[in-house]
């Protein structure tokens, strides 16, 4: 059946024409120059406005100060990495020495297990945040997608779940957090914990807030399968499983992804608040620590975090959008 796939030459010529239309001067103006001018004006306004705001920690940071702090955060990160490398080099020397001196195996093992315990840098915190949100989001999706499918397929189950979902959906993450914290402390008791409690608390809070949009949108997608297509499946006498896999799931994928995208952006917002309060070493904790620190650089450093949070949130959403475009059959749908 593969003899009919698009031949390579047409593919290239299509790409070429796409490129040509992208280089069309009017489009170029719209796509690059206008956003560039808008950002420039935003920076100017920010700069002008910030200098008017006097706080107890000095003048509100303008773009220049924030840029300077961005560089300084990056330098701190690199300095920390250098220290880490040096630490492991020293450690290796000690191990070699101990082995050469014929020290007992136990002592050498203890040395080997020693970890670098330097201060987390901004980049480490960004990574922690990403891992936490990914965990919470995946956990939520794992529950929400099957639940959404079941709810969407059966009207009775829908009416059973609907009031509960509607009630829990608007609950703020801050209300969940104390409960989650207590439950995690009570349930997750282990001598050698694989995850820290703060990580679990933050991830589970993200999960609790991520569940709802995915459940609701999946259920709506599943319930909204074209009647004609269901009639086709009845005429063909498709079994329950085949019907779900071949008809219900594919046709609800666009809605499912709408839900997943909403969930991920909510999850990212929730995460920052959860990390602040749970003291999970991520971006939320960074913001909180800088706030408590109260140095003359703190506001600028928080501003760096704000921009990073926004930028990462944007990238996460774009990532989900590209995924949605790949898996969605409805190529005509306008996704933005």
């Amino acid at each position: 059946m593969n003899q009919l796939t698009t031949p390579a030459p047409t593919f290239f010529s299509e790409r070429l024409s796409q490129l040509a239309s992208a280089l069309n001067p009017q489009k170029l103006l719209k796509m690059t120059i206008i956003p560039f001018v808008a950002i420039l004006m935003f920076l100017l306004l920010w700069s002008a406005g910030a200098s008017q705001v006097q706080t107890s920690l000095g003048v509100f940071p303008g773009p220049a100060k924030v840029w300077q702090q961005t560089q300084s955060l990056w330098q701190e990160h690199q300095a920390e990495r250098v220290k880490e490398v040096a630490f492991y080099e020293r450690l290796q020397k000690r191990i070699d020495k101990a082995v050469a001196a014929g020290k007992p195996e136990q002592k050498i093992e203890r040395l080997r297990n020693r970890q670098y315990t330097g201060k987390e840098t901004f980049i480490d915190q960004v990574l922690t945040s990403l891992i936490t949100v990914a965990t919470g989001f995946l956990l939520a999706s794992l529950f929400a997608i099957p639940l959404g499918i079941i709810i969407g397929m059966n009207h009775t189950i829908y009416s059973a779940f609907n009031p509960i979902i509607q009630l829990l959906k608007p609950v703020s993450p801050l209300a969940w957090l104390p409960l989650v914290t207590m439950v995690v402390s009570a349930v997750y008791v282990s001598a050698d914990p694989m995850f820290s409690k703060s990580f679990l608390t933050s991830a589970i809070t993200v999960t609790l807030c991520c569940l709802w949009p995915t459940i609701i949108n999946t259920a709506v997608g599943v319930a909204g399968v074209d009647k004609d297509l269901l009639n086709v499946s009845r005429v063909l006498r498709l079994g329950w499983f085949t019907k779900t896999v071949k008809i219900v799931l594919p046709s609800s994928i666009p809605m499912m992804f709408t839900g997943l995208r909403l969930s991920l952006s909510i999850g990212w917002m929730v995460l920052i608040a959860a990390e602040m309060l749970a003291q999970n070493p991520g971006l939320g904790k960074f913001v909180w620590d800088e706030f408590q620190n109260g140095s003359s650089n703190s506001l600028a450093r928080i501003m760096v975090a704000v921009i990073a949070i926004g930028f990462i949130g944007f990238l996460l959403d774009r990532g989900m959008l590209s995924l949605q475009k790949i898996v969605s059959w409805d190529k005509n749908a306008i996704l933005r």
Partner: protein
Amino acid sequence: MNKYLEIDHVSITFPTDNGPLNVLDGVNLKLDQGEFVTLIGHSGCGKSTVLNIVAGLLQASEGGVVLEAKEVNEPGPDRAVVFQHHSLMPWLSVYDNVRLAVDQVFKKTKSKQERHQWTLHNLELVHMEHALERKPDEISGGMKQRVGIARALAMEPKVLLMDEPFGALDSLTRTHMQDSLMEIQARLKNTVIMITHDVDEAVLLSDRIIMMTNGPSAKVGEILDIDLPRPRDRLALAENPTYNHYRAEVVRFLHERHLQKGLDQNDSSNEKEQAMPRDISDNEPHEPPVRLAS
């Protein structure tokens, strides 16, 4: 003697917010094997309901459908349906849409290779072999309907049910589709029930035209046997007096129903409107058909 397909005193009543609504009232129809029958009537007269009951998608409140001496009351591939709005899976290619049906119907009786050949064969039958890998969104309305027909034919149905299959197409495409359908019908000799609004289409394609009375409580009004030799050629028939006579018969029936519908509506919606002269008594709003079904 039992006929191939019998629609036996079928009535159906739907519950609505304003009480039960009797849509069909004792519809009777018998079909021979290989017969091409069209149902014609005004909108809302229950043509689609008849088709859906034969398909098993709806259950008759009274009466039933007997196919080859067996009662049918659930959907199955032996009564394949071609829907008005193609109803192809938009995420599957043309080939995969037909293959889905073939795999389901012949999963035990045909090998993989045979199913592949059978899928291709049916798509060739409707002249769609050039677009196997296209998605439904990438082909025209007429082509989608061709694939829908191929999918239905691929199920090797005993009865092919078509619910206004060409209703959404432009007239030129419709003409092509009708010719294709006649060509396929000449080769395969399927038993077909087709719903249409188009008088020319009905006369051109059918062996018999079933004209239905207006709903609610619709029944078979008149049955018109179309005794024209096959193969039929639309250009030659345009001058043919018999063809034009049949055409006029159908138009006359529909026109009479239309007038009556107008009276019925005045009757129910505006009691005070008495200006219009009427020759139908108020006790009998549903005038019995001029010529009863045989």
